[in-house]
């Protein structure tokens, strides 16, 4: 089986390499036969790659330790679903999954209806296939997932107990899917630059890819935070770890790309910025991989010290040089096509919001690279602490929240209308009232007051903007007009709902960061323990033996002062194979906050050592993130056929004009 896998991997590498070369050459020479051969080769390569995935997946589930990879990441006692998840836990397996997902992106790019009319499709597929070839080259020459064990062991090393968590079943594939999706906007940008097709066609086609990648990466980051919160047992969800920063940075630049793309499509401004962001976001996905695989950091996460990370660095360098050269050659044609419509126009707000996003990304980037950068610049390795992040991120984050809140009451190319100004005044009044109430209530941090005020502004601006849109539809009955407004302006209103989700996320971050309380204690069975206004009673300690582990758990009855009592069961698991303990925290979650219990150990059968953490507003954080991701998918859903038909019935033809016709219709609707 290992030989079959090796052969399939080699076939996939050769076929995708030919597909990349043939697709780019066919696009240049306008050679139909060559283009068809590229498609056939890419399809063959993808089939071979799928075969490799099946072989490794089967070997993992069947615990075939003749595969070195299976012996390293699986074991006889590991449940099949965690065994399968080992496919993306190890170095070679995760790269294989990533390559396969890039292959799927190629398939969609080549055959999806929304890409069919594109003049850029051939070159785009060529660039995607070239990247697939790079990933396969890394697999073939650096991290072979099909390598055979020197001597097949009777038992494998098993999966780290920390990674045996439901969030880890889907977090890595989701992040790799997002990285794969970001390949296509970059490929479209490179194709547009190479061909000199600098109109908004590439942006119109990049939009669904970018939006999907943004939502998927956001979901992946959220799942990773949830894993850290539930599995690492320290009561937090974000530690400014280089790996966390590595995935956050492309998400921030991707957010900027989506907004700059809108400004470019609607107003013809930020044209160079969109190209730079499309290339940079993809490059930063590779940077995240470089962080995890180069071994230049010490982190909570494990890092390999293989040369693979440096291969990604070379790729980033090539991308920067290639993209920079193309941008330089096209610089004359990338000037803005219209002036900004004033400082209060929506495109100006996007410029300010983009700047805030770049600053956030820059801070995370410098934080991630502080050690090697300081070594290079001052000859000493220096680690930067939390104060660096907090000082820079709090004002920038508040600015970003403010621009996010104002978006529904702004217009493209013009300052807000008289009605919008009036509604903005009401929204600011709501923000002031919220700030005053929060201030009078006392005991709140200025940041909490700021976030609460921005939240009030965002909610008022959202509903104010919606009301203005609905009023335009009078004399229709109110609810009918509201439905029509939401239906016709679905993309726009979904985007504003995503903004509200981000505001909820900020509320959760502010609450859980500023008001988190922690207390450690040793509890005796039956004796009540008072912490703040909560009574905690240790009911008992139980020990259960399972095939792969020993479980020790403590049953706690928690009675808050003004709420119903609840039971928690924090536990400790002893994993026999890995000879490691893991902490399984217990969390009681409400909209006001989480009560988080950690069991450390029990010196005897009558007492247990525990830590309790109160993390306020955590549900707002998770709920806000889920809302933003869900809203992005709603915005992503294709427009109804009627709209498309009316667009295609326009006397203007071609994808660019279909976009213009559609936009015209939207502008008629929304003013």
């Amino acid at each position: 089986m290992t030989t079959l896998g090796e052969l399939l991997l080699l076939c996939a590498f050769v076929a995708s390499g030919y597909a990349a070369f043939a697709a780019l050459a066919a696009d240049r020479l306008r050679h139909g036969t060559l283009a068809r051969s590229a498609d056939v080769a890419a399809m063959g390569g993808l089939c071979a790659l799928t075969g490799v995935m099946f072989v490794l997946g089967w070997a993992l589930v069947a615990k075939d330790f003749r595969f070195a990879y299976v012996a390293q990441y699986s074991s006889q006692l590991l449940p099949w679903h965690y065994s399968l998840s080992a496919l993306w836990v190890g170095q070679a397996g995760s790269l294989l999954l990533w390559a396969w997902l890039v292959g799927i992106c190629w398939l969609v790019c080549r055959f999806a209806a929304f890409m069919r009319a594109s003049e850029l499709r051939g070159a785009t597929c060529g660039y995607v296939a070239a990247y697939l070839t790079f990933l396969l080259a890394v697999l073939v020459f650096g991290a072979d997932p099909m390598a055979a064990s020197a001597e097949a062991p009777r038992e494998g090393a098993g999966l780290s107990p920390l990674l045996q968590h439901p969030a880890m079943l889907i977090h890595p594939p989701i992040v790799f899917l997002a990285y794969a999706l970001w390949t296509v906007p970059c490929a479209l940008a490179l194709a547009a630059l190479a061909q000199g097709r600098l109109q908004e066609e590439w942006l119109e086609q990049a939009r669904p890819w970018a939006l999907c990648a943004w939502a998927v990466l956001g979901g992946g980051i959220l799942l990773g935070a949830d894993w850290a919160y539930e599995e690492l047992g320290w009561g937090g969800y974000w530690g400014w770890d280089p790996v966390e920063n590595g995935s956050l940075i492309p998400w921030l630049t991707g957010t900027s790309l989506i907004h700059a793309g809108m400004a470019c499509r609607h107003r013809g401004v930020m044209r160079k910025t969109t190209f730079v962001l499309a290339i940079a976001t993809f490059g930063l996905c590779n940077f995240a991989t470089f962080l995890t695989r180069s071994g230049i950091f010490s982190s909570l996460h494990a890092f390999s010290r293989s040369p693979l990370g440096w291969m990604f660095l070379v790729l980033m360098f090539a991308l920067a040089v290639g993209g920079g050269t193309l941008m330089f050659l096209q610089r004359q044609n990338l000037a803005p096509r219209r002036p900004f419509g004033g400082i209060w126009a929506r495109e100006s707000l996007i410029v300010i919001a983009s700047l805030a996003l770049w600053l956030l990304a820059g801070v995370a980037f410098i934080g991630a690279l502080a050690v090697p950068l300081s070594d290079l610049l001052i000859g000493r390795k220096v680690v930067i602490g939390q104060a660096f992040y907090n000082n820079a991120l709090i004002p920038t984050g508040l600015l970003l929240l403010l621009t996010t809140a104002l978006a529904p009451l702004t217009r493209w190319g013009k300052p807000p209308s008289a009605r919008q100004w009036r509604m903005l005044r009401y929204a600011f009044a709501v923000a002031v009232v919220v700030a005053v109430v929060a201030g009078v209530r006392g005991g709140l941090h200025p940041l909490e007051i700021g976030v609460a005020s921005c939240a009030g502004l965002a909610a008022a601006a959202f509903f104010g903007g919606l009301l203005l849109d609905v009023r335009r539809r009078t004399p229709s009955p109110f609810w009918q007009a509201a439905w029509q407004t939401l239906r016709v302006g679905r993309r726009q209103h979904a985007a504003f709902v995503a903004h509200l989700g981000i505001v909820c996320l900020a509320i959760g971050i502010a609450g859980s960061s500023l008001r988190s309380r922690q207390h450690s204690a040793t509890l005796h069975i039956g004796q009540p323990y008072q912490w703040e206004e909560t009574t905690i009673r240790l009911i008992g300690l139980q020990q259960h033996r399972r095939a792969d582990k020993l479980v020790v758990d403590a049953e706690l009855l928690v009675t808050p002062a003004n709420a119903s009592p609840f039971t928690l069961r924090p536990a400790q698991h002893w994993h026999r194979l890995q000879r490691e303990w893991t902490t399984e925290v217990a969390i009681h979650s409400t909209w006001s906050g989480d009560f988080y219990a950690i069991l450390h150990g029990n010196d005897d059968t009558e007492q247990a050592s525990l830590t309790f953490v109160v993390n306020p507003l955590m549900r707002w954080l998770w709920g806000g993130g889920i809302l933003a991701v869900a809203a992005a998918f709603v915005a992503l859903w294709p427009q109804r056929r009627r709209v498309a038909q009316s667009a295609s019935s326009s006397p203007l033809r071609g994808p660019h004009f279909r976009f213009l016709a559609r936009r015209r219709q939207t502008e008629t609707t929304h003013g």
Partner: protein
Amino acid sequence: MTSLHELPQRMSVMPGASRVGGTGPKLALACGVIVSVTIYLASVGANADWQYYLTTDECLNQADTLIGDRLRVSGKIATGTLLVAGDRRSATFQLVGQERTLAVTSVGLVPDNLLEDREVVVEGRLENSQSLQADKLITRCASKYESRAATDIVANSTERAGPRR
């Protein structure tokens, strides 16, 4: 019909649109203020909260100049030296480098995967030229991207230590 793509690119650029109009200076000023304030605040934060990141050998070689400073030191936990309190709120161990060994006393929650012969990063103050008082331990998760050799695991798979009690 002539496609817009076939028109010379320059034709699509409206006359005078390369300038951003009167909004430009205001927007540039706003951006300049935002960037300046952020850089200033970040530099204040970085100056207030930073530590040297050293290997065990580097730390011990420069110990005389580092006593009392907050440091982050990387190394491996020496076999047979790890002692963890029953409530998992303190631990002591020897951190070994290439040549020298540093005694570490840690106060604070001990991570689950703090094990002997594993790489660890400790954060705390150097008390004297031989020992460091740590308040934070950062461990590596050994099976992500890089696994322990399966044979090592199999060789050690007989249980040597009982469950934590």
